[in-house]
């Protein structure tokens, strides 16, 4: 299980703590890498900035992506990720508070695999995280990680 990394892109520390708690509550013990803005997320995925030198053959099993992010927003992260050979097949779940139609259209248009709205009540949130973990970490078979040169 150690190779199945979850990349959580979330700027709100409350939401980060709640997400980690929800994962723990659901016995999801995978390594969670937290990126607190779009730049950091991209840095992790492409081994730049603070993540320079990271082994690129290790890619997250799933990216949980918030949309409203400082510096580079979630849509831009998604666009860059889909535009790169190394990450274009990576499963990305948009996990956001918003329920705007245009966000959903935008998200799917840019190639998100799923769009999940974070419910306000925590029980619902735990259930959502449970189902996400079950589906993306266990059921879903991702595309192989391309060999990085």
């Amino acid at each position, binding site marked *: 299980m150690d190779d199945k990394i979850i990349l959580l892109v979330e700027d709100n520390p409350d939401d980060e703590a709640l997400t980690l708690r929800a994962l723990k509550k659901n016995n999801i013990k995978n390594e969670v890498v937290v990126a607190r803005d779009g730049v950091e997320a991209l840095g992790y995925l492409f081994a730049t900035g603070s993540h320079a030198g990271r082994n690129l053959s290790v890619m997250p099993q799933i990216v949980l992506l918030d949309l409203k992010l400082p510096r580079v927003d979630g849509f831009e992260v998604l666009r860059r990720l889909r535009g790169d050979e190394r990450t274009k097949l990576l499963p990305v779940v948009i996990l956001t508070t918003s329920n705007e139609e245009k966000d959903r259209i935008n998200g799917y248009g840019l190639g998100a695999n799923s769009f999940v709205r974070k419910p306000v009540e925590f029980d619902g*949130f735990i259930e959502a995280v449970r189902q996400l973990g079950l589906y993306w970490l266990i059921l879903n078979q991702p595309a192989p990680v391309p060999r990085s040169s």
Partner: protein
Amino acid sequence: MGHLTFKTQLLPAFGVAIVILVCIGVFSYKRALQEDTDQRWVAHTHQVLEQLDALLSSLLDQETARRGYAITQNPSFLERADAGLNELQQHLLSLRELTSDNPIQGGELRRLAPLVTARLALLTDLSNPAERRSTVIKGKFLMDQIRAIILAMKREEQELLAKRLQAAAASSGRMKTILIVGNTMSLVLLLAAGFVIRSETDRRDRTQRELQAAEERYHQLFDRNPLPGWVHDRQSRSFLDVNAAAIAHYGYSREEFLNLKITDIRPTEERPAVLESAHRAPDRAESSGPCKHRKKSGEMIDVEISSYPLVFEGREARLVVAIDITERKRAEETLRGSEERFRLMVSTVKDYAILMLDAEGRVVSWNEGAERIKGYPAGEILGQHFSRFYPEEDVRDGKPKFELEQTIKLGRFEDEGWRVRKDGSRFWANVIITALRDETGHLHGFAKVTRDITERKRIEQMHLHFRGLFESLPGLYLVLTPELKIVAVSDAYLQATMTKRDEILGRGIFEVFPDNPDDPKATGVSNLRASLERVRKDAATDTMAIQKYDIRRPDGSFEERFWSPINSPVFGAERQIEYIIHRIEDVTEFVRQKKRGDDGESAMRTRMEQMEAEIFRSSQEVQLANRQLRQANQELESFSYSVSHDLRAPLRAIDGFSQALLEDYGQNLDAMGLDYLRRARSASQRMGVLIDDLLNLSRVTRAEMRREPVDMSRLANVIAVELRTAHPERQVDFLASPGLHAEGDSRLVRVVLENLIGNSWKFTSKRERAQIEFGALQANGNKAFFVRDNGAGFDQNHADRLFGAFQRLHGMNEFPGTGIGLATVQRIIQRHGGRVWAEGAVEKGATIYFTL
């Protein structure tokens, strides 16, 4: 001499010779048999003679012995006599046997036998001496008789012998003749046959030599033939020989070829046909094709085949020569294709009369278009002179002749003018005549293409008229293309804007009318551009507010002007925008008066002008309000976006951490502490719902609306089913009148019914038997739908407060809710241009009506 001689002459010759030899054999055999018989007969004669002599001798011995006894009485004589008597009897018997076949000798013998007996008897009597003398005399007499008979018999026998010998000699002579003649004939025949065979063999040798020479020549011709060729077995179709050209052309080596069959170089789909044709391959030369062959490289070629029967190494075979016609065929096809296309094109062209004239101007070809335009069927016009298409006066003036002369001189001649149809009517034609010359430059004739452009001519004329009309209009009009290029302008417009037609036609409107560079607040270009943009986008007329748009004088300085512009689209056949008409009114004078007349409306000369001034002011206000509204809408949009995102996040934190606190530290709290936490959670959750409802409300306001038919009864039933599913514990009688329809935005109407029926569902929760009804009635001539229930109801005095946001007439503990539902309903109904109202009484149920 030929084969015929061999067969018809040699075989009978051999036949005759064989027959002769067989006959000779038969004769010889028969002769040998005859000789054998003759020999036996000679021996027989000698036996008879011998026995006759022996008989006589024995008789004489008896005489001697008897006589001896009689004289001497010596018994030894008697003994001798008795012994001799037997011998004598024996000889008689032999003679009888030997002569049994001969009646003459038989008769003699029968005479002899008694005489012998009598003589023997006398000899016995000799012992009586008394009678001896007479006995001797008698005996001598008998003996003479016996001797005579024996002699006669001997003579007879010898005569027979002589006769037989003579016959044998004669037969042997014939035999000799036959042998000589027969053998001679056979010899002659065999010699003749031998000669024939010899000459036949010679002939064959000669033929063989000729054949070898021919084969030599064949190989020369075959191997050095520049055309690919081969020999194949007629039955098995295997290649037996193949020439150098075939090897070079098909790419197979000789060895590869000899391992192939004819079918191997044919495409798969043609193989059955090849097999079939082999069965009926005639024993004579034949040509076939074109057919397809496959080279070793896989390339397909088209070939024509000539094949000849021949015997090759003792096998029935065919010599084949293949001519590759791929290139030729391709060229032919291309040519045929282009000729055919060209012919088809020309003949089916309907809009152009395309005809050929010979060098003298007579029609030699005629197409469909020519028939349609000029009215003559081909049969009627071919061979006629083309001058008949011209009006009489043109013919008199020698125009047809002139046109041909010009064509000959220039190669091509184009003309527009009147031409005459078969029925005498005239049409305006565009005519192009081209001279047709061969390579040597010799004139063959002319190609003439005529188009009936009467209609176009008419339209052109009409356009001219209309342009004149348009330009003379008293109003100020400009016609623009969708790209905003000026294509027409009225004289009044030119005058008002101090421009000249030929200076502005074809140019962009903003190039001709730029903003006044000295006026930093000039909005003319941007406002006009926005208006024209709206016309293009909405395909609808756009009226602009009164606009300051300064005009450049011919000297380059600008003059302050105010305009009231209106822009309208002109549609083409496909409903696309073809032109935009830009109409303006010069209101400069009026605006100036208005500005000057701040001190008194009395400056306004007419009531009309006052009204126009009002309109100007309010239109300016509307423009401003619109801009503010757009801005407000944008702000609202970004506001609700941050509400949906930013307000909910802290709520989730409150709820989430309260939950965490409950779970992880719940045991450290007393009942009251736990209750507080639960309240915090439920409050935050309620606020989440509140935010969602508020967002819905604002979304309902902003959402684009589309009117479409909505099946209201069905929609109501669907919502009721959903509510039943969500609240299976509730007992609700729901009744929707069938067949109710409305026009509206189906998504928004659904929100209305969800809220209304949902409310009824909620407010009847305290009823044992909840009743909810959806129906419609006529109210003030409009169809009003209603949702009625027997729930908690409300105080009619507060009915107007029902539809305000956050207005609740019941305590939260009684019935939960945000108080936004009916506000949302009202917003939607208002957007539909309808009305919503409520009737009810406390604990007596409520009815909400609405129209769409």
